[in-house]
C-alpha cells in the first residue's frame, strides 16, 4: 500500500518535473543568451565567457527604456479605463434588468472571439482617418478589446454573488450610493477585480498585433520594438534576448505575486458554491 503510494508520488513528481523542464527551458535558454557575446552566440552552448555587453548595449545605446515606458503607458492606461468603465458596467449587468441584457453582455464577450489580425486592417484605415494612428490614445482604445470583456465578465460574477440585501442594509444604515459602492461593494469584489485587472495588464503588455499595425513610429511598445534588434545583415541575438527577458519581467513578477489569487479570484465569482 505505502510502496504503491510512494511509486505514484514518484511518477507524478517525475512527470511534473519533466513538464517543468520542458516549459522553462526556453526561458532558461533565453536567459543564458543574454550573457553571450555575438562571437560565442552560435559556437557555444553552456560553456562560454559571460559578458554584460548585451545589457550595456540595450540599456545605454538604444531606446529600450523608452519602449518600456510606452508599453507601460498603454497597458496601464488600458487597464485603468477598463476598470473605470468595466466595473460599473458589470454592476449594471449583475443588478439591473434591461432590454437585450444578455445579448449585449454576449456581444462584449464576443470581442475576444475574433482573431486580432482579422480586425486590425479595417481598424488601421479607421485610425488613419481619425488621426489616432500611432498615438497612446489609439492603442489604449484598441486594448479595450482585450481587457474590457475579461473585467466585465469576472466582476459581474462577483457582483451577482453579493446579495442585494447587503446594499439595502447599507442604504438603511445611512450610506449614500457612492459610499455603498466604495465601502461595501468594492472590498467584496476586490479579489476578482485585482486578479482580472492584473491578467488584463499582462495581456495588454504582451499584445503584438495591434501595436505592430496601429503604432510603431512615435509610440513603440516593447513587443514591437524588440524586433528592431533583427537588423538587415546581422541579428543581435544577445541584445534581443536582453530586451525580451527584461520585458517579460513585469508579467512574471505579477504572475508570481498574484498566483494565489489568480485561480481562486477568477473562478470564485463565476462558480456558485
Amino acid at each position, binding site marked *: 500500500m505505502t510502496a504503491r503510494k510512494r511509486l505514484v508520488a514518484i511518477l507524478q513528481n517525475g512527470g511534473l518535473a519533466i513538464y517543468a523542464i520542458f516549459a522553462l527551458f526556453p526561458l532558461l535558454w533565453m536567459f543564458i543568451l543574454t550573457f553571450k557575446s555575438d562571437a560565442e552566440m552560435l559556437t557555444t552552448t553552456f560553456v562560454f565567457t559571460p559578458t554584460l555587453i548585451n545589457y550595456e548595449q540595450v540599456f545605454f545605446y538604444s531606446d529600450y527604456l523608452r519602449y518600456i515606458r510606452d508599453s507601460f503607458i498603454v497597458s496601464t492606461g488600458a487597464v485603468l479605463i477598463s476598470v473605470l468603465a468595466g466595473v460599473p458596467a458589470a454592476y449594471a449587468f449583475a443588478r439591473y434588468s434591461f432590454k437585450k441584457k444578455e445579448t449585449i453582455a454576449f456581444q462584449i464577450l464576443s470581442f475576444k472571439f475574433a482573431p486580432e489580425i482579422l480586425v486590425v486592417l479595417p481598424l488601421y484605415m479607421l485610425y488613419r482617418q481619425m488621426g489616432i494612428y500611432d498615438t497612446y490614445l489609439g492603442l489604449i482604445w484598441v486594448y479595450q478589446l482585450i481587457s474590457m470583456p475579461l473585467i466585465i465578465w469576472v466582476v459581474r460574477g462577483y457582483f451577482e454573488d453579493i*446579495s442585494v*440585501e*447587503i446594499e*439595502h*442594509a*447599507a*442604504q*438603511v*444604515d*445611512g*450610506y*449614500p450610493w457612492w*459610499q455603498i459602492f466604495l465601502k*461595501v461593494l468594492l*472590498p*467584496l469584489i476586490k479579489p476578482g477585480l485585482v486578479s482580472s485587472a492584473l491578467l488584463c495588464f499582462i495581456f495588454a503588455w504582451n499584445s503584438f498585433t495591434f501595436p505592430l499595425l496601429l503604432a510603431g513610429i512615435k509610440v513603440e511598445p516593447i513587443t514591437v520594438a524588440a524586433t528592431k534588434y533583427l537588423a538587415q545583415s546581422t541579428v543581435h541575438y544577445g541584445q534581443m534576448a536582453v530586451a525580451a527577458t527584461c520585458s517579460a519581467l513585469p508579467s512574471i513578477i505579477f504572475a508570481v505575486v498574484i498566483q494565489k489569487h489568480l485561480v481562486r479570484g477568477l473562478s470564485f465569482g463565476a462558480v456558485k458554491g
Partner: protein
Amino acid sequence: MAKIELINVTKRFGKVTALKNVSLEIHDKEFFVLFGPAGAGKTTILNNIAGIQIPEEGVIKINGEIVNQVDPAHRNVAMVFENYALYPNKTVYDNIASPLRSPMYKKDEGYIKNAVMKAATLMKIDMLLERLPSQLSNGQRQRVALGRALVRDPNVFLLDEPLAHLDAKLRNLMRGELKEMQHNFATTSIYVTHDFMEAMSLADRIAIIDKGEIIQVGVSDEIYYMPKNQFVAQLMGDPEINLLACELVQDDRGFTCVWEEAPYHPFRLPEEPELFKRFKALEDNKVHLGVRPQNTHYHFEPVDGSIEGTVYSFETIGNKSVLTAQIGNSHVRTIAPNGLPVKLDQPIFVTVDIARVILFNGVTKEYIGRYDEADVMKLVEEQKSESSKEAGENHG
C-alpha cells in the same frame, strides 16, 4: 418613535402586482405583525416603508410626513433582513457599528464603543465581536443583524422573519426577548412572520396579508376568534381549523346545520337572535362550520350526538397529539393526549362543541358569526385597551 401610515399603496414588478391598494396605520410604539403565507407581499411592505422600493401608487407617511421621495438613508428606519445581510468582510463589531459610522448617523468612536457593547451584551454576542460573519452560526448572525438595528434610535424597526432560521429552542427564547426588548425600547416595530405562534405571542396588532392584499387587521384574539374569512381561520391555528360544508335548514324550532358527510345527524343550532338574523340575510343556504380541533371531541363508544368515523391518523406534536378521523370523504382533526391507544382504521365517534363553532358563508367564505361573539368582543376590547395603556406607560 413614529406613526407609520400606508395609504392605498400599490406596488408592481413589471406585470406582477405585489401590493394591491394596501392601507395600514401603525400606531406609535406599537408592535405590529404582518402575517401571511409565503409570497403574500409581507417583505414588499417592509421594503416600501424602508424606501428600498418605491410604490407606483399611494402614499407612505412617517410621523405624518409623506416620505415617498425620501431615500432609505434619510427615513431613519432600522431593518433586519431575512438573510441577515451582514457585511461579510467586516467583524461583528464593525457590522454593528456600521450605522453609527455612516454620514447620516455619525457618532464619535467613544460613543460607538459604548453603544456597540450595549447592543452586543443585550444580544449576548459580546464575546464574538472580533469574529467575521462566516465564523458565526445562523443564530448568532441573526443576533448580530438585530444588534445592528438596535444600536440606533430609529423611527421604526422593520423585522423581516428574524427568527425564521433559528432552531426551536433559540426561537422560543428570542421570541420572549424580542417582546421584552420592544417593551423597553418603546419603538414602533413592524414584524414579518409566517409562524402563527410568533404572530399571536408578539403582536399588539396583526395584519393578515394574502396575494398583496390586507385581509384583516386586529388584535390577536380578534383574528383568532373572529376571522374575517376561512383563509384567515385556516392560517391562524395549528392544527388547522376543521371546516364542515353544511346546508342550513330552517324549521319551526329554528335552524339546523346538515353536514353533507353525515346528513343523518343534523347539528341543531341553538337560538341566538343576532346570529339568526344574519342567517336569514344569507342568499344561499350553504354554510361552512369552522371548528377548532380543541373543540371537537373523540369517543370510543357512541354518545349522544356523535358521528361515526374511522381513525385516519394519529400524530404526536410535542405535548399533545392530533387524532384525525375520517368521516365520509372528510377529515376531522381533534386533540388527544399523547400515548392514546388507538389503531388506524378503528371506529371512532366525534362530537362537535356547537357553542364554539365559527360560521362561514359557504359561497363567499366570509365570516358570518359565532355564538360567544359578545364574550370575544369583550376580550378584544380588553386586549386593545391593555396595549394602548402599555403604549401610554412607555410615553411617561
